[in-house]
């Protein structure tokens, strides 16, 4: 063995080849089988992708770095189930590019935060967390309520996600901007279209509080209220 190595370390390309082989095996064994996950993880029949407004909120959640302190992955441990709800299933993030499971809970898990708090609570909390939770150490995000939501790029984003396998039909893509506006304006003409394209269970309301203005706050709150509510599969799991 030692002699073999003695010779190996005189041939740089031999060393390179040996490193590539040794460093590839683990990744191949663990990752390659996961690409067949479509066959092992059943996509629930009622799983829907995010609506355009929720998707816009998700982009803002990523932009602001919320995932640095909030996980979206309830582990299969008794205390987590008691605190946050049923443990997270693989299928629940099947359409998430990227996944936002997170790795640190400086704040609580958000995988099932949807509809646990009112819209008004979320708005007040995001504008100034200490106004609602005096001991909170979360930063304030007051600019969300002040910034109009950019809906122009939603179609392009959804088209890209569709190429990666997220079920955004051409009809959903074409109506992205309109659907984003209508979801926050339940009495508008387009509201029926949102329900028709994304299902009756989709919440239609002025999430940010003001139906006259569509802001980033509407999108973020719509996204937060959708968390854990894209399918009921986890509640039915054993």
């Amino acid at each position, binding site marked *: 063995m030692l002699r073999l190595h003695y010779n190996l370390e005189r041939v740089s390309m031999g060393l*390179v080849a040996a*490193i590539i082989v040794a*460093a590839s095996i683990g990744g191949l064994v*663990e990752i390659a089988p996961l690409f067949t996950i479509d066959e092992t993880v059943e996509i629930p029949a009622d799983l829907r992708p995010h609506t355009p407004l929720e998707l816009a909120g998700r982009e803002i959640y990523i932009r602001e770095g919320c995932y640095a302190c909030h996980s979206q*992955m309830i582990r299969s441990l008794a205390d987590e189930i008691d605190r946050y709800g049923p443990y997270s299933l693989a299928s629940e993030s099947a359409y998430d590019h990227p996944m936002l499971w997170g790795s640190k809970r400086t704040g609580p898990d958000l995988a099932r935060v949807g509809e646990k708090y009112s819209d008004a609570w979320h708005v007040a909390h995001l504008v100034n967390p200490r106004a609602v939770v005096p001991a909170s150490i979360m930063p*304030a*995000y007051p600019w969300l309520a002040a910034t109009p939501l950019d809906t122009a790029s939603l179609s392009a984003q959804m088209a890209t996600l569709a190429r990666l396998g997220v079920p955004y039909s051409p009809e959903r893509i074409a109506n992205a901007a309109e659907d984003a506006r209508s979801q926050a304006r339940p009495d508008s003409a387009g509201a029926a279209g949102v329900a028709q394209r994304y299902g009756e269970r989709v919440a239609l309301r002025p999430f940010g509080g003001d139906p006259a203005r569509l802001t980033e706050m509407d999108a973020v709150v719509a996204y937060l209220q959708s968390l854990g509510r894209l399918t009921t599969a986890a509640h039915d799991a054993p």
Partner: protein
Amino acid sequence: MPTSEKYNDHIVRLFLLAAAVWGIVGMSIGVLAAAQLAWPALNFETSWLTFSRIRANHTFGVIFAFGGSALMGTCYYVVQRTGHTRLAFPRLATFTFWGWQLALFLAMATMPFGITQSKEYAEPEWFIDLIIAVVWVSFGVVFFGTLARRRIRHIYVANWYYGAFIIAVGLLHIVNNLALPVSLTKSYPIYSGVVDAMVQWWYGHNAVAFFLTAGFLGMLYYFLPVRSGRPIWSYRLSIVSFWGIVFFYIWVGSHHLHYTALPYWVQTLGMTFSVMLLVPSWASAGNAIATLNGAWHKVRDDATLRFMFVAAVFYGLSTFEGSFLAIRPVNSLSHYTDWTVGHVHSGTLGWVAMIIFGAIYTLVPQLSGRETMASPRAIEWHFWLSVAGTLIYVVAMWNAGITQGLMWRTYGADGSLTYSFLESVMAMAPYYLLRTIGGALFLTGAVICAFNVRATMLAAPAGAGATDRPLVPQAAE
């Protein structure tokens, strides 16, 4: 041997200078981020100064800007010295410096504005990833090109590690960042859900393995023997530990996903290999410490060598802790808590930064044509500030993490959870304060280091600071 040939030391100096500056930038952001968790008012309600946005600036800044610049600089130094040859492709080598600095600058300038992929330790968007990929391949061409023209038949062990670092990081970077762009500042990774999580932590933990471990072991294997004047204790042990690290590490990323929706067998493999990894890790740490046998008086007297000794000790401690935390039931307590943060900093402050400082204090005088650094006393100050800062930080985060983990899972007699999440946040206050103090001490040391480096380079004898050393056979090998 042609006597007119000279080493390319200019590129090494550039990288070391960049490392000293980026170290201060990355650590300053870290101290600010730590302070924001203690006093939320320090977010200033300003989007680009907010904790959640600048956290990635801290991690990317210290790992890739500070650590990366130090790794590339020392790698170029070591491969020339151990091969008795000048660096291959000098223009490409210069390109790797400016290209790397450009990528770092773009990454650091875009992340505070929310331009991020959100993948941990791979936050920069796709156009920056492309620049990084080009620079990295060029780095590999220069390194292996230089190795190919070496005059010493045997490839010294430090170069095995630098080589593995370059190959594996290139592979990890490309696979993890495969994405479909929507616009210049927005892309979607091709992976989703559970596959994305596995790829992310395969990358994330191997960034630790090959960036923060293999590369720095290369540094250790060269600078520790040179500074102590002792040969590596065991050649056989270095072979065993090298191949153990290269082979085992790649399996362990899934220990970040215990009890999640990742298939159970993948979690189990990750845990098993994490525990096995302790063998080559401790073989490396033990080999380094045993190398100091016969040179302990130097460890006592020479703060530079003491930096390297402490680095080896923290390497041993962190790798033990890492294997321990990867065990499923332990992980159920520690995951998502500040224990992980403490573990990472025991490795990055105690091991990575300390070995960098040891290498800087060894190289800078030599590259400036001087016997010693401008102020040897300042090195002592720096050393004790670093040790104190690291210990305060790590002990605070251990306490924080274990407290959180226990509070989250405590049940009352009536079978309900005893503590609200908020109570666990409130319990963190003293630890977050201590962490800020520990980080500030460490940062102070890094600032002292940068001034000392500057003074040493400026005090170089006329011309010595700007010229390359002539090629002379060295003791290594």
